[in-house]
């Protein structure tokens, strides 16, 4: 029998800390056979990346060291290379040569100061001793292999000139440059839009088939595991919780953690046949207390009509406007009291700008926004400030949206002070109440954000948003940065608060499975326009617009039967929302599908659909 390509046994990696060495991973063992795809899955802090980085001795650059265990790589001629004992010179012949690596953030994984060609050629010159011309030739071949159009032109471009999906292809091409026998992919699609994710996953699979390289895929997403893996290693707190073939782990999980992890993954279609949102099962002990159905009211709380926002693009001698980016184009929707409307779309679709326009943090170019009977665009700045009391916002990044130098108490009571709602000791009482509401211990009030986990911080952000008792909360990708188990808890909390306090949500998101959980109604945005709007049930059961269908089809599912799903590999550059000054798009025309279900039939001119990106 052939030897495995990689053998890891009893691995323990330690990192320095104030209290001495702590183990990042311990007692981790797995093998990788040639040509197989193995997924290491786990939540943040589970040690999944550390295990993979150690194979290339990359952990030492962040201070870590291998304290125990064995790491071997089959060298191609039957011998074994001891990856733990290899010195730096030998490691350099392995990195990028025997083992290639793909990273999570294509936006930052490439050096912004050098051309794509330079960066591709670097490892070829290093490992293959190629001349500049030879390297350029091979680079073109590689770009073709990862299906990048116009490869010759790309070589002269800088990373910032390319889209995220394109950059990730470049990173993959770089990893493939020297035909490695193992490809390590660290969350390669987490930062990408769902349709791009589907393309990249399909590409990795295809490249495995073409080159025969084994793939070690690190992910937090069970659905990605279901789509990609031959073998699965589930990690928790630096240890292996469970491993086995993908069928075994997904259909018959043995470890309680694996079972819990699978339970909290929102699955598309879970809610079929149900009209109202429902909380999810969670691993946490704080069970969700929703005792009445999430029935929306009948009064219109927010009425947005023909909202349009264009950002001028300046250039030339005097900084005149040379074009407009049509961020939001003629968007109309309503939110009822106690209702959740989800605005879904991919990056650049204009969903966040819509949210900012409602709060008037961005000034819309035209349109009407009526909130609770008030015409928001007609208010003075001071009146608008007061109106914001009833509309609060929760942001995506719980690390960035809290002030690191203020205690949580100060941050939660700040809105109360701003609107002069409470004073003196009542402030603190109210903060304590709010912390009870979001299930955080009161003792946390004295802490600072750095002392909390991501999920806890997002709870603080919610408490802060709740403080002035708003009628509407705009949640801009509020759970996207959280681990899946935490995500479920936060979603449940949001629904619980809705049941209790009658809050309306504008839920801005991109994850269709999450959207299906929480929404009463859904509006799909594409290129600044709403292309389809309907009740949650209608849109998931009967999507009408091409884009809605694409979006739904691209969501990876846990269903092993759908693995063979073919995804189109050819890249079509996304159409551009940038138009010359004076350009007026066609007026929107919606077709009524059934009661409450509308789909855009014009307004996106045919030229938009296939136009090149900027």
């Amino acid at each position, binding site marked *: 029998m052939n030897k495995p390509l990689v053998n890891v046994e009893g691995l323990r990696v330690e990192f320095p800390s104030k209290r001495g060495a702590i183990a990042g991973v311990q007692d981790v063992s797995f093998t990788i056979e040639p040509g197989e795809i193995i997924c290491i899955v786990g939540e943040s802090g589970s040690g999944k990346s550390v295990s993979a980085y150690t194979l*290339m001795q*990359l952990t030492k*650059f962040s201070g870590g060291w291998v304290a125990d265990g064995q790491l071997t790589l089959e060298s191609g001629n039957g011998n074994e290379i001891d990856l733990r004992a290899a010195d*730096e010179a030998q*490691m*350099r*012949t*392995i*990195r*990028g*040569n025997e*083992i*290639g*690596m793909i*990273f*999570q*953030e294509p936006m*930052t*994984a*490439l*050096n*912004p*100061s*050098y051309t794509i060609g330079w960066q591709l050629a*670097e*490892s070829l010159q*290093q*490992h293959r001793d190629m001349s500049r011309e030879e390297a350029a030739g091979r680079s073109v071949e590689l770009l073709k292999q990862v299906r990048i159009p116009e490869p010759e032109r790309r070589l002269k471009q*800088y990373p*910032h000139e390319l889209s995220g999906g394109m950059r990730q292809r470049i*990173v993959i091409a*770089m*990893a493939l*440059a020297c035909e490695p026998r193992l490809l390590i992919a660290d969350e390669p699609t987490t930062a990408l839009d769902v349709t791009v994710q589907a393309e990249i996953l399909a590409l990795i699979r295809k490249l495995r088939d073409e080159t025969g390289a084994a793939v070690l895929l690190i992910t937090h997403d069970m659905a990605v595991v279901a789509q990609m893996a031959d073998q699965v290693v589930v990690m928790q707190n630096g240890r292996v919780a469970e491993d086995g073939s993908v069928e075994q782990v997904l259909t018959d999980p043995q470890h309680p953690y694996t079972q819990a992890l699978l339970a909290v993954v929102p699955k598309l279609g879970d809610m079929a046949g149900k009209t109202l949102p429902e909380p999810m099962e969670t691993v946490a002990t704080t069970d969700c207390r929703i005792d009445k159905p999430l029935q929306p009211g009948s009064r219109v709380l927010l009425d947005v009509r023909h909202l349009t926002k264009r950002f001028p*693009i*300046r*250039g030339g*001698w005097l*900084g005149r406007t040379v074009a407009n980016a049509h961020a939001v184009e003629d968007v109309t929707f309503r939110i009822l009291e106690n209702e959740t409307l989800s605005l879904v779309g991919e990056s650049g679709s204009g969903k966040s700008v819509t949210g900012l326009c409602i709060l008037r943090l961005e000034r819309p170019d035209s349109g009407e926004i009526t909130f609770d009977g008030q015409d928001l665009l007609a208010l003075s700045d001071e009146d608008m400030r007061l109106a914001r009391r009833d509309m609060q916002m929760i942001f995506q990044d719980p690390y960035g949206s809290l002030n690191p130098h203020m205690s949580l108490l100060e941050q939660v009571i700040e809105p109360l002070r701003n609107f002069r709602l409470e004073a003196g000791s009542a402030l603190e009482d109210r903060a304590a109440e709010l912390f009870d509401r979001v299930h955080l211990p009161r003792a946390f009030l004295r802490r600072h954000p750095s002392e909390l986990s991501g999920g806890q911080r997002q709870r603080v952000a919610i408490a802060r948003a709740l403080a002035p008792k708003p009628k509407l909360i705009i949640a801009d990708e509020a759970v996207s940065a959280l681990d899946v188990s935490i995500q479920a808890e936060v979603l449940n909390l949001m629904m619980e608060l809705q049941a209790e306090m009658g809050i309306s949500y504008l839920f801005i998101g991109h994850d269709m499975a999450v959207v299906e959980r929480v929404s009463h109604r859904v509006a799909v945005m594409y290129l600044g326009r709403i292309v389809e709007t309907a009740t949650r049930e209608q849109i998931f059961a009967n999507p009408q617009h091409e884009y809605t269908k694409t979006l739904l089809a691209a969501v990876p599912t846990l269903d092993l039967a759908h693995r063979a799903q073919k995804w189109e590999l050819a890249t079509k550059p996304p159409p551009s929302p940038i138009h010359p000054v004076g350009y007026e798009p066609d007026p929107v025309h919606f077709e009524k599908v059934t009661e409450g279900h509308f789909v855009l039939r014009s307004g996106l001119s045919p030229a938009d659909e296939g136009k090149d990106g900027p």
Partner: protein
Amino acid sequence: MPYLLKRVINSVILLLITVSFVFFACRMIGDPALNMLGPGANDIALENLRRAAGLNDPLWLQWVRYMGGLLQGDFGVSYRYGFSVIPEADLKDIGVPVVDLVAERLPATFLLAGVAMAIAVPLGLGMGVIAAAYPRHLADRLVTVLSLAGVSIVQFWLGLMLIVLFAVQLGWLPTGGYGEPAHVILPALTLAARPIGRIAQVVRSAMLDELAKPYVVTARAKGVAEWRVILLHALRNAAIPIITMIGDELSALLTGAILVEKIFAWPGIGLLIIDSLSRSDLPIIQVSIAVVATLVIIVNLLVDFAYRIIDPQIQLGQKA
């Protein structure tokens, strides 16, 4: 290149504003004639000077005449060096043109600033890179202490100590003066201390930031040698703050070497400004400050162009 033109026009406008500001400021610190000749001067001498220098005219007229002269390349003449008691004589006919006085000093200023930077840039870069490559090691701590010392050391004390050691005790170098290559070493070393420290600090922190970025891991994962990771990948991206700092320090050397020039009797432009201020020799002050301002503006322009060469994402004058 429209951007270049735009920046040059902006710079010229900035320069005109600076020159005008200096012109008016000089005339607000009291009667220039009295300041120059001293409290004991007799009325005739004062009146002669005022008439000769045109100080009796209204301020706006003096300004128009001055700016008009500037645009024609006439920078005026020194009161001091050209003053004559001949009542009817016009200052212009007998005075020493200010331009000559300032031009005489510029080479010395350039030489001193140039040598100081030639010492400071490689040393500061090297110290910073080594500190960032071995964070928290002995080398890093040493660099931290040295750079802090360089930044905080008092210039005239350092200058005097260098004189005591190298000129008085060891006798290797002259205590001061100008003309021989040996003359420049001590003042340049004195001046270099601060830029060495500041450049090392900026290089260290910018490099630490860059080395923590994902593209560095990408480069290492490609099997790139560590020196390439540091010098080609990280240093290039850290270059923006480093160049900004070098530009700032160079500007400071061009304008602020007064103390060192005094200690080492170095005939630079700083010394000329100080001497002229104490004598209220307005034309010299005006022109010297204008020249220094021009130099600073040129350095800033160069720094801006360097940004564009280094960082492909910077489209100067345009929003990216």
